[in-house]
């Protein structure tokens, strides 16, 4: 069980190897890739930043909740920070479990909760030259 914030590229092959267990029959992984567009705008690059100590604490809580709730064998999540390019892995989640239903449900829970609760922010750089902190623009009251 682990959750980490990483400023180096995510290596799914190595992370997957840590979840191998002889008793587990099912492995589900999720990767969030940097897309070349978002809500109609062409994205050239982006960066993530995090409030690392709280992000890792909240992430550990999410993993613990998933293990408790779905009865999975083990799970891990890594979220990148720093500048990323199109196609880079922004976030990776892996779950191993005796049964596939629990593995799917837990993997989805972890990514959904991570996106909702973990203090990580994304700034997108558009082809137009503009940059924007995602989710912060529409909140402005003027």
């Amino acid at each position: 069980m682990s959750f980490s914030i990483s400023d180096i590229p995510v290596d799914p092959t190595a992370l997957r190897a840590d979840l191998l267990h002889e008793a587990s029959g099912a492995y589900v992984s999720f990767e969030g890739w940097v897309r070349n567009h978002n809500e109609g705008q062409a994205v050239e690059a982006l960066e993530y930043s995090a409030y690392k100590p709280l992000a890792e604490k909240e992430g550990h809580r999410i993993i613990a909740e998933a293990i408790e709730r779905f009865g999975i064998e083990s799970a891990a999540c890594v979220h990148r920070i720093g500048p990323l390019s199109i196609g880079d892995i922004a976030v990776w989640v892996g779950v191993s479990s005796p049964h596939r239903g629990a593995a799917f449900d837990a993997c989805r829970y972890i990514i959904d909760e991570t996106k909702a609760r973990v203090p990580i922010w994304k700034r997108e750089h558009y082809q137009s030259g503009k940059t924007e902190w995602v989710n912060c623009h529409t909140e402005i009251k003027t």
Partner: protein
Amino acid sequence: MPDSGRELLTMKFSIEYFALLKDQRGCSSETLETDAATPRDLYVQLAEQYAFSLPPESLKVAVNEEFADWNHSLNAGDTVVFIPPVAGG
């Protein structure tokens, strides 16, 4: 500036800024002395001073590396972080 009529009860806090708040504040952390008794008081003061665009209801707040209530009673030396809408994943 804070109301100088309440300057008797001031405390020092460390504040860290992230994402849009860091850009709008122009720095990533500072220490300041203020009469704010809660994170809500503190954000209102800072938002006015630095023209933060995010309303407090769009933020969460953390005190000493844990999520906290907006009406939490701050203690001298606390580290306070205002958390803009997250966008991980």
